């Protein structure tokens, strides 16, 4: 049977890192279980997106933070091989340390010489109890962190939207003076849904939709260019982000009832 020359294809790694809040408050109203479920359920879809993008090698890691921050999955793992071990809630919110852990991994080396923009997803239901600012400064000193697509998901109304916005960077796309930490000026996130603002999930369904969106649509956008429309708005960031998941049933509000 005639075939095609079997040659190695060029590809770049795409590092996808979850930063998961595992503080004691995550135990309330099933938030921790909902997050574990949402991530586990999102993996097949994420593997499909990776399959559709042979020029990207999607590698997943996760950091958990409570009293301290630890690598939950320290090895960059091909998504199709990933097995999600449940996170357990308990302790305070060492979010700054979590950012430091990620910062160390985004330094080159260990980062590859060539890669696709990393995707960092920070999920939290509360306020950092350590030096968040210091952690963020360390993170944002890394060129790969500056290039990264940074998303934040706020669980419930106690989440600190200001620090999550600081992690994402300014929502307006305004250029910051040199040396200033993005978001440090204390600007408050504006109303309305945007991937450049913390995504507010007030129940398990909304959380699952956002996790699915981040692990599929965003991974797709970061790994392979998608169709462009000539819209007048100027794209913010170095990767045009896909539309947020449509809010079925009631498009005017958040998805479903407020539980958290």
């Amino acid at each position, binding site marked *: *049977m005639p*075939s*095609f020359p079997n040659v*190695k*294809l060029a590809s770049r790694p795409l590092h996808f890192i979850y930063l998961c809040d595992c503080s004691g408050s995550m135990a309330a109203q099933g938030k921790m279980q909902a997050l574990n479920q949402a991530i586990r359920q999102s993996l097949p879809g994420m593997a499909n997106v990776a*399959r559709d993008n042979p020029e990207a090698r999607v590698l997943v890691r996760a950091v958990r933070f409570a009293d301290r921050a630890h690598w939950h999955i320290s090895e960059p793992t091909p998504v199709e091989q990933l097995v999600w071990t449940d996170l357990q809630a308990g302790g305070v919110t060492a979010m700054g340390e979590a950012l430091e852990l990620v910062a160390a991994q985004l330094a080159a080396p260990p980062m590859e010489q060539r890669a696709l923009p990393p995707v960092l997803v920070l999920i939290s239901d509360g306020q950092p109890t350590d030096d968040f600012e210091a952690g963020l400064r360390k993170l944002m000193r890394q060129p790969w962190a500056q290039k990264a697509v940074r998303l934040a998901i706020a669980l419930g109304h106690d989440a600190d939207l200001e620090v999550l916005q600081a992690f994402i960077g300014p929502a307006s796309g305004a250029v910051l003076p040199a040396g200033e930490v993005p978001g440090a000026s204390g600007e408050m996130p504006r109303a309305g849904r945007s991937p450049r603002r913390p995504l507010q999930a007030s129940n398990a369904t909304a959380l699952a939709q956002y996790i699915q969106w981040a692990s599929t649509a965003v991974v797709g956008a970061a790994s392979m260019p998608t169709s*462009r429309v000539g819209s007048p708005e100027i794209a913010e960031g*170095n990767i045009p982000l896909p539309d947020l998941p*449509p809010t079925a049933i009631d498009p005017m509000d958040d998805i479903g009832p407020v539980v958290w």
Partner: protein
Amino acid sequence: MTWILPEGAWLQFEAFSTPVQVVRGLGSGSQGQVYEVAVQNEALALKWYLPSCIARDPHLERRLAESIRTTAPNQHFLWPIALLHPTADSLPLVRCRPAGFGYLMPLRPAGYVAAVEHIAGRIAFSLGEALRAAFHLAEAFHALHSKGLCYKDISLGNLFLEPGSGRILICDNDNVDVDGRDLGSVLGTPGFMAPEILMRQAKPGADSDLFSLAVLIFRLLTRHDPLKGKLELAIRCLDEPARRRLYGEDPVFIFDPDDARNRPDPELHQAALVTWPLYPSDLQALFLQTFVAGLKAPSRRALTGQWQEVLARSLDRRQLCGVCGQETFGTQPACWHCHTPLAAPPLLHTPHAAVVVSAGNALHAHHFNKRELPALDRPLARIDPHPGDPALLGLRNLSDRAWRAELADGRMLTLDPGRSCNLAGLRRLETHLGSVSLSQPAAAATAGPLRESAP
């Protein structure tokens, strides 16, 4: 997955008399969701748009309605059949507001797979099948452009391939527009978009389609990106600004004869380096035309008709290695796979072509008549291996007319439709379209075929 249309529901649509049952959700993307539906026991596909997509593209509905009236350019398109707006009764079943609309199209038949499966090397798809798929792609764009239409956003994501035949299907035909009118919002997909579109210096149309077509053909034939060479390796983070440089500001074809800055890397870009030399120089020339002069000058890009002609001619040169059975196209002294030297093959001469005698090669109407556009789907004759002895080749009459064959020993016989004759004994064939003669390579006539390849 949250489906906008509930699975199992029966929906009624305006100006569409038959109810439509949603069978199951097939997939979702940035524009909307696709379902398998049943319409009077016929399985069809239904694409439903997200409100955000409709909002971004105010002329979407008008373009679709026009496409439906125009009908499909040819059989290679999964073309829209009907525009669907829910009736007041069905509106509550649609789980988004505004409910929006969708369109019906044929369901993709089993056996077709996403083109990315070939690019990723996950399906068996030979060089010859890739050439056939490329030919059909050029044929599809020829038919589309001939209708005065343009596609605007072709990429690997809209293309399906049938392994075994090399047939194609093009989906997502909802950006199709009258060329030059620009009733649309789409620009294209970076990597496939012409540089002038990416740089927002022009609107997508038939000329930019020709660029995207060449990229897609290149990727089918080489499994590599024509603009990804050393310049891409110099990029650390491949993000939007970097792609803009690579594909828009300073695009350089990896095989540009006068600009070596973007040559393939011997280690990382093997796919391009291994496959490119396998293709005939007239095919390479069309890529050079499109990716060198045509990069900046849209009017100089290779035309759909040129692609069809040259791709069909490349297939005429298809020769199988006598040892491993791999395909070559007359460019190599030895097989790319097992390195066995290749002998000059016998040829079938028609009034306007010479077709290599090799199992699977075929004679078509365009080989006899210069005015016929090249086409592969209705072969007049095909070279078939003998069922008992694959080394023995015969020519099968696939036409509906009887032909006269003159054998080497001077005998005449009639070759009825569906019958084949042994090529070893054939001298001439009189078909209803013209004569076919067989020539043996001069040097190989006496010596063994494998030892006799020209260095």
